């Protein structure tokens, strides 16, 4: 096995791990935002948001 092989493998491994970390973080963020949107659509408002609106009206 040449040394270049181990080097290539290390960089490949690094690439994969970094890609997984980045991908997971982004997908997780997307999922949470979707869930928030769903809740918002179902009419669950954050209390502070509701309060803000009330203040605006007043």
């Amino acid at each position, binding site marked *: *096995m040449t040394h270049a092989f*181990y080097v290539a493998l290390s960089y490949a491994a690094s690439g994969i*791990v970094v890609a997984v970390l980045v991908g997971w973080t982004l997908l*997780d*963020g997307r999922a949470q935002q979707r869930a928030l949107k769903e809740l918002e659509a179902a009419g669950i408002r954050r209390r502070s948001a509701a309060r803000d609106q009330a203040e605006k009206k007043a």
Partner: protein
Amino acid sequence: MSEPIPAIKKFSDLANPTIFLGLTARIVPFLAVATALMFAFGLYLAFTTEGDYQQGETVRIMYVHVPAAWLSMMCYSIMAASALGTLVWRHPLADVSAKAAAPLGAGFTFLALVTGSLWGKPMWGTWWEWDARLTSVFVLFLMYLGLMALTRALDDPAKSARVAAVLILIGFVNIPIIKFSVEWWNTLHQPASVMRMDGSAIDGEFLRPLLVMAGAFTLLFFTLHFLAIRNEIWRRRVSAQRRLAARMANRES
């Protein structure tokens, strides 16, 4: 998120999740771009500098192995600081930060283990050895996974925060062990040559790409950590609003 960002008036405002979300929304794009640039430069340097006369090509593994190893320890230190924040100051974001850091730390530790093994096979002739440095890094990896398992199994954040913080602090003894294992015990692994009291003992030819790559990894870590904290805040909002939904349904019916 297009929320208006409340102004930061005092230091403790940073504890406010909404303000934090606003800040990250502004900072993260810059961080991400900087990370990409730094990686490009680091990789360029890593593959254009010459190989070592002793280790040949494999020295290039160092440019990922060492930053990953450093970050695995730094990440745990950040978690320990967050744990202190949870226990001492009851900072609402501290627990979020610790929880968000754990998977990242596990990732970097895994990387250090894998690249170390890939380096060890050509250099030492074995993938693995139960010496003090390697074992302690492996223990660090297990600790990360254990903490992840714990925080996910206890789904009430208020409850898991203190338990996790205590465990993080107990596990912190491992970090000095990792750092100094090469000096305290007789190991295969080489002793520190970059970060030493009496100045660096490594050739500038290798030091330059190493430091650039270390910078790139660090930037990557902070970018991801910010994003992960943001995700965690959102996750808690989701679960809080779900509970609220359950209770509102009670009231209406």
